[in-house]
C-alpha cells in the first residue's frame, strides 16, 4: 500500500525538471525559442511560490470569470440514463462561455509580470482566441490571433467577437488551414518577435513549461469539484468524464484527482465518422507517439511521420495531437480514453438541451455522449462528474446547418 501511495505521489508531481511526463512532453522547438522558454519557465517557477500572484489569479477568477462554477446535479438526465447520479461541472457558465478563460487569465498575468505588451495565440473553434482577446482587452495588451482560414469561415461569429474585443485575427492559409497550422504560424510569429511577445498557448500541449502551467491554471476545475462533491455528496465522485482535444479541460478536472486512484478518469476523444473510418481526431485511441509543436505525445500521423488531417464536427477537438500528460496517463493506465462519433455527440447536444435546458458546446457534447455507454456499467448509488467545458451558443450555426436550416 505504501509503495502504491508513492507511485501516486509521483503522478501529481510530474513533469520532471526538463518537462517530461514519462517519455512524453519535453521541449522540441527551434533554438531561437529556447531562451524564451527558459525565461518563461524561470518566471513561472518563481510565481508558483508567490502567494500574491495566486491571490490576484483567484480574485480575477472570482470577480471577472464568475467562479466557482456550479456543480449541478442533472436529475432528469440521471433518470433518463438510469445509472449513476450525473453531476455537471458548469464551466459553460464562465465569462466568455468556456473553461479557456481560466488559462488566459493566468497567462496574461504572467505576460504582465514579464513586461510583454503584445500577446499572440492560436485558435481552432475560436474559444481560446476569444478568451485571449478578452484578457488582452482588459489589460490593454496588443493581441493577434492566428486561425486556420478554414476555421475562420466555420466560426465567423467568434472571429467577429475577437475583432470587437480589439484583437486582430490572422487567417492561416498553409497546410490543412486548421488549428495545427495556426499553431505553426504562431510559433513563427513568436520566433520573429520573441523579445516583446508572449505566446498564450490555449491547451496543455506545446513545449515545456506550457503543459505544466496551463494545467496548473486549469486545475481550479478539479479543486472546486472536490470541495463541491464534499459539500453536496459528502465524498469523492466515482468517475470523471471530460472531452479531450488538446486536453486542457480534461487535465484541469483530472489533475487534483490523480492520487485518488479509486476515482475513474475517462477522456472522450472525437471519433468523427468513426475511428475505423480514419476520419476522426482521436490520437490517444488510434494514434501513435511522435513529436509535434514542441512536445512528444500521441499524434495522428502517417507511416512517414507526416501529420494527417483530422476530422470532427467540433472545431475545438479537431487537432492531431494531445497534451503530453494525457498521453502519459494513458500509458500508466491511470486514465481511460474512449471516443464517440460526430453523430453521438450531436444526439447528446440535443438531449442535454431538451432534458436539462443546458446547451453544451459540441466539444463538451462528446463527454455527455459517452454517458450512454458508461451509465449502464455503473451502479445507481455511484456518482459521475462530467466536465461541461463550454456552452453551445457558438455551435448553433453548425447544428442548424446539419439540420438543413439556414440562419440569417
Amino acid at each position, binding site marked *: 500500500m505504501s509503495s502504491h501511495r508513492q507511485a501516486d505521489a509521483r503522478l501529481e508531481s510530474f513533469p520532471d525538471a526538463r518537462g517530461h511526463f514519462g517519455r512524453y512532453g519535453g*521541449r*522540441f*522547438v*527551434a*533554438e531561437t525559442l529556447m531562451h524564451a522558454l527558459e525565461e518563461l519557465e524561470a518566471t513561472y517557477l518563481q510565481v508558483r511560490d508567490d502567494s500574491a500572484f495566486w491571490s490576484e489569479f483567484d480574485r480575477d477568477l472570482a470577480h471577472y470569470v464568475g467562479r466557482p462554477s456550479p456543480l449541478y446535479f442533472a436529475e432528469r438526465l440521471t433518470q433518463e440514463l438510469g445509472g449513476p447520479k450525473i453531476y455537471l461541472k458548469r464551466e459553460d457558465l464562465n465569462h466568455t462561455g468556456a473553461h479557456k478563460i481560466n488559462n488566459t487569465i493566468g497567462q496574461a498575468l504572467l505576460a504582465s509580470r514579464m513586461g510583454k505588451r503584445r500577446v499572440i495565440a492560436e485558435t481552432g473553434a475560436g474559444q481560446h482566441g476569444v478568451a485571449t482577446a478578452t484578457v488582452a482587452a482588459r489589460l490593454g495588451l496588443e493581441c493577434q490571433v492566428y486561425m486556420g482560414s478554414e476555421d475562420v469561415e466555420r466560426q465567423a461569429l467568434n472571429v467577429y467577437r475577437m475583432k470587437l474585443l480589439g484583437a486582430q485575427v490572422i487567417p492561416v492559409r498553409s497546410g490543412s488551414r486548421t488549428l495545427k497550422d495556426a499553431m505553426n504560424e504562431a510559433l513563427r510569429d513568436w520566433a*520573429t518577435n520573441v523579445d516583446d511577445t508572449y505566446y498564450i498557448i490555449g491547451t496543455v500541449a506545446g513545449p515545456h513549461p506550457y503543459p505544466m502551467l496551463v494545467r496548473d491554471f486549469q486545475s481550479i476545475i478539479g479543486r472546486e469539484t472536490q470541495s463541491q462533491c464534499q459539500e453536496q455528496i459528502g465524498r469523492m465522485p466515482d468517475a470523471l468524464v471530460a472531452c479531450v482535444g488538446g486536453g486542457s479541460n480534461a487535465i484541469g478536472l483530472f489533475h487534483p484527482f490523480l492520487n485518488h486512484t479509486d476515482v475513474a478518469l475517462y477522456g472522450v476523444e472525437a471519433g468523427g465518422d468513426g475511428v475505423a473510418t480514419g476520419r476522426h481526431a482521436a490520437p490517444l485511441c488510434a494514434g501513435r507517439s511522435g513529436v509535434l509543436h514542441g512536445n512528444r505525445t500521441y499524434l495522428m500521423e502517417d507511416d512517414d511521420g507526416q501529420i494527417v488531417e483530422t476530422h470532427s464536427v467540433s472545431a475545438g477537438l479537431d487537432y492531431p495531437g494531445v497534451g503530453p500528460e494525457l498521453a502519459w496517463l494513458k500509458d500508466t493506465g491511470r486514465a481511460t480514453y474512449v471516443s464517440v462519433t460526430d453523430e453521438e455527440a450531436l444526439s447528446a447536444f440535443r438531449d442535454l438541451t431538451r432534458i436539462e435546458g443546458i446547451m453544451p458546446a459540441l466539444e463538451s457534447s462528446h463527454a455527455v455522449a459517452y454517458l450512454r455507454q458508461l451509465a449502464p456499467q455503473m451502479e445507481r448509488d455511484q456518482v459521475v462528474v462530467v466536465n461541461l467545458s463550454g456552452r453551445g451558443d457558438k455551435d448553433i450555426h453548425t447544428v442548424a446547418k446539419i439540420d438543413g436550416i439556414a440562419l440569417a
Partner: protein
Amino acid sequence: MSRLKVRFAALKARRRRALIPFFTAGDPDLATSLKLMHEAVAQGADLIELGVPFSDPSADGPVVQAASERALANGVRLCDVIDLVRQFRTSDEDTPVVLMGYLNPIEAMGYAEFASAATAAGVDAVIVVDLPVEEAPDLQQVLDAVDVDMVFLVAPTTTPKRMQAIVEHARGCLYYVSLKGVTGASHLDTSDVERRLAALRSLCDLPLVVGFGIRDAATAEAIGRCSDGVVVGSAIVQSVAELSQGASNLQVTQCLGPVMAPLRAALDHL
C-alpha cells in the same frame, strides 16, 4: 575523416568561403532534385543542404513551406530523400550532403534505421530543426556510431550558457541562424551576426556557417566576411518554384546559374 571535415579543411586551405545551396528534396520532383544537386556543384556549391519535407514546418517561412507542401503532394518520403542522396553519390563522391528537417519523420522511421540508411546512402550530416541540444542525445548517439555529424543551430537568442552546451555537443560545423525569425526573412543585421560569430569563435574551432535571410551578393559578401560559409535557401527555392511552373527539367536546372553565380563571385571576391 568525414566528408564534411575534408571539405572544410580544403576550403580553409584555399581561403574559400563555402557556398551552400538549400533545396527541398522532391520539389518539383525527385528527378529534378537530383539534377539540381549536380548543377549546384557545377555552379560552385561546396556543400549541399537538402530539406526533408514535413507537414508542419514551423521554423520555415512561406517559400520553404510551399516547397515542402509541393514535395509532400508528390508523395516524397524520408526514405526517398535518402535514396536521392544515394543516387547523387553514384557520380559525386566528394560534395558533402546535409539533410535538414524536423524530428517526426525520423522518429517514425526509427533512429537506428534512419542512421544506418543515411550513412549507407552517403549522407554526411543532419540538422534537426526542432531538436535542441537537451533532447538530442538519443539521436546523436546513433548518428555518432555511424559517423554522421549532428549539426546544431545557434540563434541570436542563444545565451552564452546554451552556446557552451551546444559547442560541447557540436559535430562537423555550427549553423548560425542569422536572425530572429523563419527561413527567408528579410531583416538581417550583419553587424550583429559578426559579433555573435566572434563569440562562437572564441568557444570552438568548428567551421561556422550562416543561414536564414541570405538572398543576394551583398548579404552573402557581408556574412561571408565573418563566417566560413553561407547557406542560401529561400532565394534558390523561390527561383526553382517560379521556373518549374510548366517548365522542362532542363530549364529548371538552368535557373541555378543566375542565382548562384553572383553569390559565388561575391564570396570569391573576399
